[in-house]
């Protein structure tokens, strides 16, 4: 019993960490979005020589928006998880107290046996719901990783395109480096979140 309770408490801690991780990713995605917007304007000023860079910047902007949406979805799922885990923690606490009451009864024991059995079944269902949601969270984190990997690939392309930027080459190169740094900052954060969820 105590084991399950500490598991649910750990689950709750995981959701706290997930939310903190989501906040970090959303901030980075916001920076990428802003950078991409500036890069599009810069590419427009550079004209034909930066057409490719402009296309890549637009893709990065879409990526940042997609990532933000995904993070909002994850946040909603994490919120639902917190609700489920909180209910489970309450159920577990109540079951401990009901079980303690049953054990100290010398008569009318039957009065609590059925209640405890029902509680046990409800807890099992609740744990299943939490596990299912955890799988869903992991799938979304995997989606976010894929988006980031795509981002890393196109930020590399941005570096190449920057080289063709003629007079704007230096500025475009700086922007592409910033892209690269930001995209690379997201991936370890996501990996850590995935690892935390998989560990439990």
């Amino acid at each position, binding site marked *: 019993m105590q084991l399950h309770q500490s598991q649910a408490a750990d689950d709750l801690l995981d959701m706290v960490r997930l939310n903190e991780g989501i906040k970090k990713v959303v901030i980075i995605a916001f920076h990428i979005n802003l950078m991409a917007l500036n890069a599009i304007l810069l590419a427009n000023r550079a004209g034909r020589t930066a057409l490719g860079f402009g296309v890549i910047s637009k893709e990065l902007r879409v990526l940042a928006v997609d990532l933000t949406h995904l993070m909002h979805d994850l946040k909603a799922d994490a919120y639902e998880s917190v609700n489920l885990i909180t209910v489970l923690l*309450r159920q577990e*606490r*109540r079951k401990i*107290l*009901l079980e*303690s*009451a049953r054990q*100290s*009864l*010398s*008569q*009318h024991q039957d*009065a*609590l046996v059925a*209640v405890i059995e029902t*509680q046990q079944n409800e807890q099992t269902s609740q744990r299943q719901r939490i596990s299912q949601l955890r799988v869903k969270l992991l799938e979304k984190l995997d989606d976010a990783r894929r988006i980031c990997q795509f981002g890393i690939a196109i930020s590399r392309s941005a570096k190449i395109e920057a080289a063709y930027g003629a007079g704007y080459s230096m500025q475009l190169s700086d922007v592409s480096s910033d892209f690269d740094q930001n995209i690379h900052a997201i991936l370890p954060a996501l990996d850590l979140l995935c690892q935390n969820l998989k560990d439990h």
Partner: protein
Amino acid sequence: MKQAQVIFQEGDLSWTMIARDPAKHGYVIDTNEYVITYGGESILTDPGGSEIFPAVFSAICTVIDPLSIKSLFASHQDPDIISSLGLWLDFNPSLRCYTSRLWTSFIPHFGGDDETLIGIPDEGMPISLGEHRLDAIPAHFLHSSGNMQLYDGTAKILFSGDVGAALLPDDANEVFVKDFDRHIDYARGFHQRWMGSTEAKLDWCQRVSSMNIDMLCPQHGAIYQGADVMRFINWFAELPVGLMTFRK
């Protein structure tokens, strides 16, 4: 485990006090619960906090079938009064809980819903226990702003909630007050701090002094019986309470 002790029995009507758990943790305030039974139906007053549910439930089972409890009476909203509500509803979802109308949307934080909670109007109301009548008596601002007591005119018992409560030392486990002067020392600080309104206090003393009361049963401490009931009411009427007791 708490001990169950019948304090009144006449025909089908009984009052049982659930109190004094020697295994209780020191950090949880000791509480008295009262089970009033008439003709196979029971009502439980201030069922207590969730942490003491096992002790209360087990003690109740030694004297009655817990399924005979049809309703709960919560004098007010505090956790030591009613935070076990969720557990009681796990046991019997059809239980109803009477409490001041002020708390019907607050107490569901402990469990239950709008069907569970029956709001008592400010002026009080009769509560049926089968064919037996109990009366919810207002005692607002003593200490809660929505505070109710339960009077049984047949048994001449007033369940007074926190009024009359005493914070007894561990070695004082008497059920009835034996030495009023000694006992009241344990009640003084509690009443001065928790019962902050002189107006509410005097109003209560005036109303209750005209009632026919053999036993005044608080939620903490020992029961006042016979002449000690009026002794307590007079003592309380005279007691300085609230902010004035803070002034040096």
